[in-house]
């Protein structure tokens, strides 16, 4: 960085132009500070990435012996000490899909209402406040609500449906918040231009707002897939069980009111509740769970990059 070597006290003194940019003691110090700062930031970034890389590599190495197609398509066997992860894998897929089928439409439509239709009032302010706060409620609290509301009150029992709805309640506020953010990113001028031509609010939303915010909306929803897949607390009270054998290879093996196994729960059981489980089984389960989450997140990133590349203003 160039400093200002012109002494302000003697404005008449003329300094050769090339002198102004030569290094002084002071500027050298500043350059050093700059380098140190850069190095610190770089090291911190490395420290952030390092654990992730280590975890992935460690898990993969430990899990290598069991990772094979059969691992995915066989039920756990011999009191969890052998076999694969078919039942928990399918259970996780079930609850993620069902919960998002419930929370995504409700969340997106609610966000559209809040952002595009609702006028600022004490009522909408309370709703917005509730959304923000609900998004921060610990998942165990959602679990307790699910037990009370779905398992007992709605008499669903501990089941796929009760667990999915509990997860839906958990993901709903985050989907509303992320959708609102995406809608907000569409400039107001576009809406006004449409209104001025006599377009209704819905025509404006359909023609301009949604097509230009869909990338953000989808990214927000996809990120909730990984959250729903990874949570243990909300499902362990509402339907996930220690063991349930289902027919291998049948994707419709679970009924809506059946109890089910789930990957996150399964991993917890393997590593804490059952003695003598081969290490590779535990790590294999973890790799699948982590891999699924990373894949879904990667999908979100790809989608965002793709849609941003064709951003239209």
């Amino acid at each position, binding site marked *: 960085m160039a400093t200002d070597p012109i002494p302000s006290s003697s404005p008449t003194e003329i300094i050769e132009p090339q002198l102004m940019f030569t290094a002084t003691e002071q500027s050298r110090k500043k350059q050093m500070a700059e380098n140190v700062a850069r190095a610190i930031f770089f090291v911190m970034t490395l420290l952030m990435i390092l654990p992730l890389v280590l975890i992935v590599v460690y898990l993969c190495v430990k899990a290598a012996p069991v990772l094979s197609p059969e691992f995915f398509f066989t039920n756990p066997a011999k009191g969890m000490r052998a076999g694969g992860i078919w039942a928990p894998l399918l259970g996780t897929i079930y609850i993620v899909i069902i919960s998002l089928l419930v929370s995504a439409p409700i969340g997106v439509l609610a966000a559209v209402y809040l952002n595009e239709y609702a006028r*600022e009032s004490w009522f909408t302010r309370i709703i917005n406040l509730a959304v923000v706060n609900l998004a921060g409620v610990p998942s165990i609290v959602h679990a307790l609500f699910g037990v009370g509301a779905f398992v007992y009150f709605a008499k669903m029992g501990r089941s796929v449906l009760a667990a999915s709805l509990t997860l839906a309640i958990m993901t709903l506020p985050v989907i509303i918040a992320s959708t609102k953010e995406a809608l907000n990113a569409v400039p107001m001028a*576009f809406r006004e231009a*449409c209104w*001025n031509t*006599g*377009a209704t609010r819905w025509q404006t939303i359909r*023609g301009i707002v949604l097509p*230009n915010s869909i990338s953000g909306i989808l990214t927000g929803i996809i990120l909730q897939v990984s959250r729903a897949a990874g949570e243990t607390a909300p499902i362990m009270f509402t339907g996930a069980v220690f063991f349930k054998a289902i027919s291998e290879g049948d994707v419709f093996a679970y009924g809506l009111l059946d109890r089910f196994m789930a990957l996150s729960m399964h991993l917890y059981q393997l590593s804490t509740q059952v003695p003598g489980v081969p290490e590779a089984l535990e790590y294999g389960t973890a790799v699948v769970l982590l891999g699924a989450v990373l894949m879904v997140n990667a999908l979100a990133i790809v989608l965002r990059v793709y849609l941003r590349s064709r951003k*239209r203003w």
Partner: protein
Amino acid sequence: MAQLSKSTKKIEIADLTVRYDGLEALKGISLDIYENEILGIIGPAQSGKTTLLKTINRTIEFEPSAEVSGSVSIDGTDIQSIRNVNQLRRRIGMVFPLPVGLPMSIYDNVAFAPRTAGIRKRSELDELVERCLKQSALWDEVKDRLDSLGTKLSGGQQQRLTIARALSHQPEILCLDEFSIAVDPVTTMRIEDILKELRSQITIILVTNLVQQARRLADRTAFIFESKLIEIDENDVIFSDSPAHKLTYDYVHGNFG
């Protein structure tokens, strides 16, 4: 269409007052706008010109804090009594200072409003798009790339696209709010020529910061100052050496303040 008798009133504004959070943006404005005239509206910034336009097509209703009293009638009908507000807005074309190309193709930009009004036939839309783009003097520049994005046009082209869009719903009234702010002088002159041609078909309200623009284009000019209508008269009078108010004279001749 030949010029109708100059006395046909298109818009009648009576004692119009608009407040934002209690602050008056317009104070008791009363004026009539005749069919097929260009009415210039001049006045310094913050004097309520834009608010006046927004009141006419009722987009003022999107401002939660705005409060309107008095009446605006179009063809003798009070606009507050029109139940389908979108129908009203279709009768009025609006062009605002900053050009807004919608993030869709040039064709869709112009076809958007007709589509929302229910026109679906491709041939009808094609014809309409071509006519509007020709009217706004943009056709020759974009006819070979109607599928490219409206937002990627230059500022001046986008403003003409905005005018094409404002014409696309076949309005009876065209309001322009300082359209030349973001546009180069050459484009400004082209748009001014367009307006002169359009005058025979529709009523034009031209809000402008440029006194000379009102002088060149308008039949009559209104001078609004500090939220009040100071004077409205034929251009011959407003820009003469003896308008009714000294304030008008000072503003028009640039010896203000």
